[in-house]
């Protein structure tokens, strides 16, 4: 009895450890944003079928992606939030923000009849500040004259986890509302004045779906996939814009810095959707850390290159805006600057 037990134990340990040599190089680990998760999930599935490399991406929120990258427990982090100075300093080495696509943060809501509503920046701010409490508030009714808004309480739904979607949304609100900027500010985890929290984009979508009279912010694809209504938002030039591929692409058509760390919110473009944002994959510029092999670093760079070139075809069907030629050019430069022991990993 004891002998068999010993043998089984040894077999299992061998099995477990034996796998290391075989598969370690062909696997990449990533974590972070839920914003682009539908796209990444599709991309990684295709990539695995084509190249045999498994990419395990867990959508735990941008905050999680940043933290796990700094802790060096993942190969890359997904984030729609630009890393703060503090986080950059803690990371110990420069971290590149590789843009993959642009998306839109839409205002989705749960009302009987799912009417198509319009929102202005100050109204959005005041709803999420808790100052506008009812759906049939005078200001909402004013800009939605054709719709009979019900006498229901507004339940705000926000993120309970650290989120890049929150970052984009609060970045926008900080630009259009002085009160928001002063009281709440922008970040991945905020001190929300009101509302309940859902985990990840899916969590917020789920709560809005189930709670009558609720309002929340999610990436466009989550509203589309779940057939939830979302509002048109008045942009800087005074036009009411519906979030879609075109309006997101227009918002992304702006001056791009070399490091691609740019915010797309409150766009100047007349037909651009004002609450848009890039989503990035974060990687260390110098890949020689934590006993990482050169092969693995090469696989990572190959993945990044594929995602920003051939992989881009998967963006449009899922309503994400692919990288513009200008953006792609800057991105290529960034990827080429990823090095292992100083020398570039890609020609």
């Amino acid at each position: 009895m004891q002998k068999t037990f010993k043998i089984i134990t040894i077999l299992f340990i061998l099995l477990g450890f034996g796998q290391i040599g075989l598969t370690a190089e062909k696997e990449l680990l990533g974590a972070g944003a839920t914003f682009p998760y539908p796209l990444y999930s599709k991309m990684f599935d295709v990539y695995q079928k084509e190249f045999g490399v498994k990419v395990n991406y867990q959508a735990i929120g941008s905050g999680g992606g940043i933290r796990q990258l700094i802790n060096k427990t993942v190969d890359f982090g997904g984030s729609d939030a630009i890393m703060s100075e503090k986080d950059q300093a803690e990371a110990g080495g420069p971290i590149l923000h590789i843009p993959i696509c642009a998306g839109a943060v839409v205002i989705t809501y749960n009302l009987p009849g799912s009417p198509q509503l319009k929102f202005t920046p100050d109204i959005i701010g005041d709803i999420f500040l808790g100052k506008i409490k009812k759906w049939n508030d005078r200001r909402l009714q004013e800009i939605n004259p054709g719709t009979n808004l019900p006498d229901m309480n507004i339940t705000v739904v926000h993120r309970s986890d650290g989120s890049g979607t929150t970052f984009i949304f609060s970045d926008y609100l900080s630009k259009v509302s002085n009160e928001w900027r002063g009281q709440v500010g922008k970040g991945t985890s905020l001190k929300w004045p009101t509302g309940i929290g859902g985990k990840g984009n899916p969590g917020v979508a789920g709560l809005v779906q189930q709670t009558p009279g609720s309002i929340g912010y999610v990436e466009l694809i989550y509203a589309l996939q779940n057939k939830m209504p979302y509002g048109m938002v008045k942009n800087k030039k005074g036009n009411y814009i519906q979030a879609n591929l075109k309006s997101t692409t227009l918002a992304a058509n702006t001056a791009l810095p070399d490091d691609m760390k740019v915010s797309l919110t409150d766009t100047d473009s007349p037909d651009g959707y004002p609450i848009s944002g890039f989503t990035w994959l974060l990687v260390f510029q110098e890949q020689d850390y934590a006993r990482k092999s050169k092969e693995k670093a090469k696989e990572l760079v190959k993945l990044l290159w594929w995602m920003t070139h051939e992989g881009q075809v998967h963006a449009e069907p899922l309503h994400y805006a692919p990288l513009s030629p200008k953006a792609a050019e800057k991105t290529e430069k960034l990827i080429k600057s990823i090095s292992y022991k100083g020398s570039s990993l890609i020609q």
Partner: protein
Amino acid sequence: MNMQAEHFSKVANSENFFRKLLSLAGVFIIVILLAILFTLFISSFPAIRTFGIYFFSGSTWDPVRSEFGALPFLMGTLATSLLALAISIIFSLPISIFLGEYFTQGGKATFIKSMIELLAGVPSVIYGFWGLFVMAPLVRKLELSLGVAPLGVGIFTASLILAIMIIPYSASLAREVISLVPADLKEAAYSLGATRLEVIQKVILPYAKSGIIAGILLSLGRALGETMAVTMVIGNRNSIPNSIFSPANTLASIIANEFTEATDSIYLASLVELALVLFLVTTFLNTLGKWIIHRMAVNR
């Protein structure tokens, strides 16, 4: 003679080795526990140093400004646990009397006992799942009829689910305690003509009182640490709840939500400090409860 001495010394050696091995196993557990305490303390030290005692009175949890106060979660934890405890006592005390007095053996007893064991065996995440999809809509209907915001999630829902989860635990504790009441005490009362109810009222419960209180403490300890089911139905709001239907967060649920992404060391340390508080409080309650029951068993 030489071989015999050799053999005996070998035996003595193997015995010594074995005894040492056993003692080592015992020490191992102690070391693990101390290591856990130590780790929690060290990791939360930056927060302890920064906020000091004001950590517990601070009601702001603001990761943007690195201001962390635990009061909302202390209140959320207390509110859900106490409410859950109150609701569960209504059911667990009858169960324990049922199994401890009325039906101690036989078919009905086995049936109820098995059902209670099954109830205890359902994983927490399934309770949360069921709570989100069945209880939350029901609570939403209730809230609509009361004119309160129809969130469906919040302290009330979390307490209901939590109550169902701790019923088996508190019931088995109470039953254990009730069975500790000496038979001769009960028989004396019966022989004086008391009814079942009167024996329960006037003999069993007073005698088992401290044990039942211990059971309450232990159940409270269990409820405080419950994570998954609560996280899924509590509404995830980092501010002090102001009504029974408010969304809130408990110590356990805020850790589950925010741990993987605490992006700077004060944030992380604050979360670990919450874990430390959880650890200390549950340890205190558990130790106290077990000590009371132990004393009761020893004193009979």
